[in-house]
């Protein structure tokens, strides 16, 4: 963004006279294109172009934030003036945006490619393609300015799978940064979603051992570790864990925003800090917290200060869960499970940090009987308590790590951010299961 950063920074320096004070200006320009597709035909496309700027001052436990529409230098100055309690520009009317960037041209590649992919691999569907391009700029007192941009692709909706037993609607979601081999990954996901399967039997409620396969253990760790270790999270059963062993020593889980191949990755967080990987579980013991500038204390921000929008303040939030691989093959883990459930896709998760109770929703799973994959199980929930679940993890992890492309958007307090993760197969004993009705 074409600002006089030095001039803005000088104004911010006045707002943050103490070393611990924070004053910054954050601007975002985003373009979102969204096109529904139904059985190969496009529906009503939508395009959204937004620009917004927020100035923030934080000192002695109090924070003030001023947001205006627009992302030009005029908007930045108007936000700072509002923060200072001065009359905003144009008698309180929002300030216009700067030069808009092109958007539809960026989407044209996907608009050409997706219908061909769908026609070949999943011809019956009700899906929505969403392409989000965001450019962000941060100027802060006593810190260098930062610019960064991200482009994300999501395909979500229903794939109709035909089989001898009749058509079946299957939830489909795929989230990835728009780079590299993403189209190939999407093709693989569509082929799997549309593959014929046997008719499922209803899930039976009760305690069960579960093998979380194909990366979906990342959802479990996102819920029970990432959310509870966000520095401003409420107290949880992990708060008093100290240095006590919580789980098997083979388990290493970290949150790594630097993984730009995952949906939650970024080069700079929304306070302009270069992120670093944070160990959440190391050798079975609880690791560090995810912090932003406000909550980082002496050790500083870990680069997890994220904003759901320019109008929202930054919060310490998780980005990408990364679980280190073990040495077992998938077959070995199924044998080791013995009797239980094999789950390869979790489409929603939630946690209540104060009680430690979490819940993971699945659409389909496979029962495992005597170490072999058996019948298909219909939709249900896995739930449990976070410390018990960590204790129930077996010391043998899968040797292949898979990105969990179904994990894409995370909401906390109504603020939605891109997240993702990758994990090997993880065997957890003693969860509870309940069918969805």
């Amino acid at each position: 963004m074409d600002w006089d950063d030095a001039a803005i920074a000088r104004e911010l320096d006045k707002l943050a006279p103490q070393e611990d004070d924070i004053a910054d200006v954050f601007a975002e320009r985003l373009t979102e294109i969204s096109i529904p597709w139904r059985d190969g035909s496009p529906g009503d496309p939508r395009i959204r172009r937004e620009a917004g700027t927020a100035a923030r001052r934080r000192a002695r436990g109090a924070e003030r934030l001023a947001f205006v529409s627009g992302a030009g230098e005029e908007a930045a100055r108007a936000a700072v003036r509002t923060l200072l309690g001065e009359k905003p520009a144009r008698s309180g009317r929002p300030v216009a945006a700067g030069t808009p960037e092109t958007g539809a041209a960026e989407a044209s590649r996907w608009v050409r490619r997706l219908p061909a992919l769908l026609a070949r691999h999943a011809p019956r569907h009700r899906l929505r393609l969403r392409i989000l391009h965001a450019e962000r700029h941060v100027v802060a007192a006593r810190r260098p300015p930062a610019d960064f941009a991200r482009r994300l692709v999501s395909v979500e909706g229903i794939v109709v799978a035909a089989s001898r037993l009749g058509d079946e609607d299957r939830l489909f979601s795929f989230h990835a940064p728009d780079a590299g081999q993403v189209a190939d990954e999407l093709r693989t996901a569509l082929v799997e979603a549309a593959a014929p399967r046997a008719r499922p039997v209803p899930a039976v409620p009760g305690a069960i051992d579960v093998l979380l396969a194909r990366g979906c253990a990342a959802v479990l760790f996102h819920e029970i570790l990432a959310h509870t270790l966000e520095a401003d999270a409420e107290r949880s059963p992990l708060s008093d864990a100290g240095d006590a062993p919580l789980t098997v020593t083979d388990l290493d889980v970290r949150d790594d925003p630097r993984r730009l191949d995952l949906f939650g990755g970024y080069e700079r967080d929304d306070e302009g800090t270069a992120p670093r990987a944070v160990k959440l579980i190391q050798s079975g013991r609880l690791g560090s917290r995810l912090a932003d500038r406000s909550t980082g204390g002496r050790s500083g921000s870990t680069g997890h200060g994220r904003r759901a929008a320019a109008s929202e303040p930054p919060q310490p939030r998780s980005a990408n869960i990364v679980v280190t691989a073990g040495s077992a093959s998938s077959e070995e883990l199924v044998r080791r499970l013995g009797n239980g459930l094999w789950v390869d896709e979790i489409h929603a998760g939630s946690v209540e940090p104060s009680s430690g109770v979490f819940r993971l929703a699945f659409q389909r799973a496979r029962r495992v009987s005597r170490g072999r994959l058996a019948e298909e199980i219909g939709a249900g929930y896995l739930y449990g308590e976070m410390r018990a679940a960590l204790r129930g993890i077996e010391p043998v992890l899968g040797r292949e790590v898979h990105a969990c492309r179904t994990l894409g958007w995370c909401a906390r307090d109504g603020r939605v951010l891109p997240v993702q993760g990758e994990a090997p197969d993880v065997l957890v004993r003693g969860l509870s299961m309940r069918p969805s009705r």
Partner: protein
Amino acid sequence: MTFEGLRRALERRAPGRWELYRKTSHSRERDTCRGISRIAERSEEGWAARWWEGNTEEPAAALRFAAASSAEMLAAAIEDAARLPAGGDPVPDLPARGRKSPAPEAPAPIEDPPDLGPALSAAISAASAGTSSLATLAIRVGVAHERIANANGLDVSQALTAADGVASAIATNTRETGKGKGSSAAARAAFRFDPARPDVERLARRLADASLLPLSGRAAPFRTGQWLLEPAVAAAVLAAVAPAFCGGRGPSWLSRETAASPGVRIVDDAGAEAAWDGEGVATRRMLLVESGEVVARLYDLRSGKAAGRPSTGHGARPSFREPPRCEPRRIFFEGSSPAAAETLLSSVRRGLVARALTAPVRVDLPADRYEAEFTGVSVIGGREQGPVAGARASGRISELLRRIEGIGSDLQFFPMPFLAGSGTLLVERAAFD
């Protein structure tokens, strides 16, 4: 670029088939969370356009939608959207109205929201005997100006005000009972308030109950019984079922002659909130269920066109970022002879009172199924017996509506996110587990 300039651009692109929307808003939010206090002041501008491009002789055309945070950006977004593939969509009959000069736009000055934190904190503590405490509180006051114009000559403006918030409380078990010493439970509540007379006590009771009752560890003592739903729970059930009343065709179970109990009315009336919906259609009271029978449905312009009906003023537009969609705007249960909540409680012979939900209500409208997880108390002979940490009521939605035997006079509204309201609701029989 101005509003007029965009009108001309849209008319050139889609003669007689466009709609233009602008919203300017100004709000202040007070956020208190674990010792940090934040004031956020926001001035936002939003623009949106929707147009049907194609042969004007054809009944269907390519529908496109663009939204932006300035007029200039919207003009560029319209150009970009025109290059995206689009399917054919029946062109609705856009509402007409004589031209009217728009209302003045200067936003009214807004003060910082009241600091309800200390009062709410004290009230929660009192309502829970010190076991539960306020964890977070965010309250917001705001004013917005909307202007809606279309190719049929409509040009209306309105001012909207909002005062709402979200609060959460955490209860910790300090005794060796229920789930065990040191166990905690949290609860969150979204609310609206009157800045002149905020009802802190009622909100505090809601948060205290929702956070405290799950700690008891007690399961539901009955598998079936009467079910008394407090207003927040009943409103959440209604909000979950409400999509069944939207658009041209509802689920088959709703078309029966006795879709609900004879004493129940379901009404949508957003007249107190706004004069127009998000498409510029005048707001009106819609009686949806009367004497147990569905007597009307809700339509926006597009769903109305598909069903061959006029819009009922239910083109909801919660944000400029999304096109209008058919949705209730202020839906509520209305009893033909509402009773006091205490009277309803005393009439429970054996059953459960649902004080707060512990998970969102889940419904499968085509399959006529619902599932509600809640915390509350058990009641025998009209007297509360003890807490129930968690119970689940599930069954057919149609049976739930037919079994409503009483509606309380304590009507309250909750943002869900559209407004849904109810008094205390008594259901004659429900299955629990």
